[in-house]
């Protein structure tokens, strides 16, 4: 108890080296997808196009920040025996709030993502951060940690979606870039780049997300010496 009391004394909200590390660590050295291999399920499901990946990333960042902050606020009063259930309630209600608000004020994107918004509840990253970080730290640091992890997840999601959309459909963010434009009988836009390119259907299917993530993990490890396994 003595340790926590010392930490609680400094109530100042600052943005120093430690806080920056909270933000940047999950983006690089401790990335939830490429290093911890968490949240793979949704990374497979929503990465067929960049638009969906982007909205999903924003929603996860929101849920991560607030669930971390709220859990951290109540961390001393949450009974240890039921903490998982309490965390789940917090996540589920936040996701429901996102869903209700989107349905009222952004109906089009609600329609497009309705299936995946529910999926945030089962995203292991959110729950993992609550257990590992928010239960032991102040709300401010927890919110930063949530933001960092959300961004770390989102970046990988968008990179994977970029490769899958580009090679699978020849598009970037819904705009046709490469390959023949006349895939369907009537098409008004003309494509000029690499007209011979035949869209690779495998990239649209789920297994390709596995390949892309595996290659990303390899590239990340090769590039970042801290991740080399010494054991």
């Amino acid at each position, binding site marked *: 108890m003595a340790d926590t009391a010392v930490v609680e004394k400094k109530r100042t909200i600052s943005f120093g080296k430690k806080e920056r590390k909270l933000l940047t660590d999950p983006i690089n050295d401790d990335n939830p997808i490429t290093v911890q291999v968490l949240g793979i399920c949704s990374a497979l499901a929503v990465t*067929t196009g960049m638009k969906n990946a982007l909205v999903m990333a924003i929603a996860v960042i929101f849920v991560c920040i607030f669930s971390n902050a709220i859990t951290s606020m109540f961390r001393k009063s949450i009974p240890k025996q039921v903490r998982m259930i309490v965390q789940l309630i917090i996540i589920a209600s936040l996701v429901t709030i996102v869903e209700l608000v989107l349905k009222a004020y952004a109906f089009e994107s609600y329609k*497009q993502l309705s299936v995946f918004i529910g999926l945030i509840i089962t995203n292991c990253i959110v729950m993992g951060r609550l257990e590992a970080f928010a239960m032991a730290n102040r709300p401010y640091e927890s919110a930063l940690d949530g933001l960092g992890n959300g961004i770390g997840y989102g970046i990988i999601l968008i990179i994977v979606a970029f490769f899958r959309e580009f090679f699978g459909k020849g598009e970037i963010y819904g705009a046709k870039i490469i390959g023949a434009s006349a895939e369907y009988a009537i098409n008004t836009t003309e494509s000029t780049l690499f007209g011979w390119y035949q869209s690779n*259907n495998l990239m649209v299917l789920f297994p390709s997300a596995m390949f892309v993530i595996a290659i990303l993990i390899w590239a990340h490890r090769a590039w970042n010496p801290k991740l080399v396994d010494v054991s």
Partner: protein
Amino acid sequence: MHSTTSIIRFVLIMTSIVALILAALQNGLKSKHDQNESIYSKKATLAAVSNHIAGDFATLKDNDVQKIFDEQIEQVVVDQSGKVYSTEELIERGIKEGKAENLDLSREQKKPAADRLRPVYKFTKSDGSVYYILYTRGKGLWDAIWGNIALESDLSTIAGVSFDHKGETPGLGAEIKDNKSWVRQFIGKKIYDGDKFMSVTVRKGGAKDPVHEVDGISGATITADGVSDMLESGLKAYEPYLKTIKS
């Protein structure tokens, strides 16, 4: 260490607060949700004739949708035998205001085919030409799919379609709604070959018959087959009604 009573108290208080917040939010936003749903389905109906509506359809405002619906659309409710229902008959059956737009179409789908009420929206373009927008519903890979099909006044040529779905995968099955160039293929296809009902089929690997077939969607064969089945059964059910207009 917490005692059992304090745990139960904590959980009870917490769930009550969460339930209250969510219930209040749901209630407060309900009218907005309903209004969004209603405009959304009206816009989907109009999307089938989007080529014949002045201005950019994608940026059409909610009250413009309502205005077109009030001024240019005549709502009719029919059944499989071609019988046209009057407003009084519909109110008697519990349809609000006796209007086709208030039909609960997913509930109609659960009835036997012969009892189903089917909406027809008669759209009059500003130059006076008339289009019939028909509705059909079927099954995709995961859940329900449905569509609006607009026929020109010859009652065979498709003027446009719009599809929607409950839970198809974005990027795969959901392309039936999102991929506008795929949807555009339907324009100009014919559902009749002379007097013979042909429907329009989605063919995997590319359309062979230029009049009655369209290309399939990569990675969404089952959803595309669902669209073919839905068009065949749905359009066929309107045949008796279409015959009464023709004669």
